[in-house]
């Protein structure tokens, strides 16, 4: 850890964060709004990478965790009018419970079977939202009375600060001994167990941490949007975007996942003039990266640095 603070990666990240923090002084509210969403998405992708890249769990349902956090916070605010911060905290806690639920099958089934279980979890949540439309607003979406602030700059700084702190915690965790044990148990659970590590405890911890950050970010996102809907926080397509971000930025790098998410959202916006072809182009670029640079953006950059 000590040599991390003198490494090149640390300085590059520091410069990026400082430059990003000054953006509200000279760019338009439109770009700030775009980046605010991108930063929350970055946290989704980093939390997913902790589960996939380190614990080796193919989670097709990141939106199960995100959606639970987002809808819990939104419903509490809508129904009881509790303060925004209490709602966000309770949303994150609900997401941790959801992470627990998701971890139970993960300890029993592996690979594609676990992937399907997580996919089913998302579909169940989606059905729940539609069936209990009185509570959740159904397909139209849930209106949320309170927002954190309406100042675009302040919202941007909150998102940036939240992403930076999350990145520091998740990256630190991934580089710590706990992260190494997780990585070992993801790659060869039998051998990691034979070395005396408690795999169940470590994996459970990974699920809880991943769920906490996903839920927190989801809850903050709905208070930024002022609405929660299936299309923004639950739909399988949102989960696909999270997964693509993490693979694109470089799996098992944590920070790369955030880069991938920012790229995906900004690129999608830049390609908006191409209309319906935007998604096609983004998917095609992502596929080419997957085929030719399987390490992703950061993976390719890091391996070049290691070689030189």
């Amino acid at each position, binding site marked *: 850890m000590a040599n991390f603070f003198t490494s090149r990666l640390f300085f590059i990240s520091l410069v990026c964060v400082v430059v990003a923090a000054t953006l509200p002084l000279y760019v338009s509210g439109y770009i700030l709004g775009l980046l605010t969403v991108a930063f929350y998405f970055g946290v989704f992708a980093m939390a997913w990478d902790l589960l996939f890249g380190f614990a080796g769990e193919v989670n097709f349902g990141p939106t199960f965790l995100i959606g639970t956090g987002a809808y819990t916070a939104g419903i509490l605010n809508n129904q009881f009018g509790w303060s925004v911060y209490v709602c966000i905290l309770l949303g994150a806690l609900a997401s941790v419970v959801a992470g627990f639920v998701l971890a139970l099958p993960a300890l029993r089934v592996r690979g594609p079977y676990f992937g399907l279980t997580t996919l089913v979890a998302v*579909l169940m949540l989606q059905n729940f939202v539609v069936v209990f439309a009185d509570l959740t607003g159904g397909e139209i979406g849930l209106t949320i009375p309170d927002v954190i602030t309406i100042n675009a700059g302040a919202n941007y700084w909150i998102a940036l600060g939240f992403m930076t702190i999350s990145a520091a915690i998740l990256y630190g965790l991934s580089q710590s001994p706990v992260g190494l044990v997780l990585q070992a148990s993801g790659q060869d659970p039998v051998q990691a167990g034979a070395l005396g590590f408690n795999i169940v405890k470590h994996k459970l911890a990974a699920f809880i941490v991943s769920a906490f950050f996903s839920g927190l970010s989801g809850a903050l996102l709905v208070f930024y949007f002022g609405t929660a809907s299936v299309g923004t926080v639950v739909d399988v397509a949102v989960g696909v975007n999270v997964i693509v971000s993490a693979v694109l930025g470089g799996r098992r790098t944590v920070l790369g996942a955030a880069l991938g998410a920012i790229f995906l959202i900004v690129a999608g916006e830049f390609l908006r003039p191409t209309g319906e072809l935007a998604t096609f182009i983004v998917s*095609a670029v992502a596929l080419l990266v997957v*085929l030719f640079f399987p390490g992703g953006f950061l993976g390719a950059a890091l391996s070049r640095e290691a070689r030189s």
Partner: protein
Amino acid sequence: MLALQILIDGFAISALYALGATGFTLIFGVSGVLNLSHGAIMVAAAVAAWAAASVLHLDIYSGALFGVGVALIMAFATYFAVVKPIQNSRRIPNEEKEIFVLTGTLLWGIMIQELIAYFFTNNAKTVLPIVEGVVDIFGNRTPRNNIFTALVCCLVIGLLWLLVNRTRTGKAVLAASMNPRGVTLLGLELTQIYIVVWGIYGILAGIAGVLLGMFLGVSSYSVGPLTASAFSIVVLGGLGSVSGSLIAAFVVGYLETITAYMISPAYRTIPALLLLVFVMYIRPQGLLGRR
């Protein structure tokens, strides 16, 4: 009377599910690939059949054949452009190839879906059915197309069974699904077996897609649900087990039909999902899966 109606309606949809899932499970059994562009290929086949009839003004039979042909080309394209490069890549560690194939085929499916939406819009398209009219079965008016769909599905699955169990090529495919290394040791080229399997898959997905286009109609929005239903049927039946998928397809098909008739069409998919979760807990390898 309601029971008979459920029996008839459920049979056609179940047979269609079975046909769609068979190709999917065959590829997994032989090469360990879960093809998440499955729904996109089925929709492409149906849209191609529709376009052949309404844009190129071909007759119904040539249109259907054209649709199956397009699915065949798509299946080969999926294999050569996405799956094979990932399987042969040296930069991807072996234990991570599975997730790369999943991500790659998923992206590929999204690309196909977006292209369809771009050129043919998101509107639902219904392929003109080959047989029209209704017949009366013990007082239930049943569209002839339902019976036709069920018959074609059963016929194609029967032909597949003959192909796999009675021909030399089919036996090689079966052997490859049991022990790939053993097959290579016997001097059979594994790559050629993969090409055959992807060919069979393309034809099956194409027929299923065109029939679906006649039966329910498709749009680019059906891509995700189609892949998800094939995936869940295959997991329920046991990955790689063709007979397991057939049983699972009928279980899911009837469960959905019963729910739609007895409770509400809005809850159609929920019991099947619950059953899936339940089976995963007590029997993670599926109904007839081997570990």
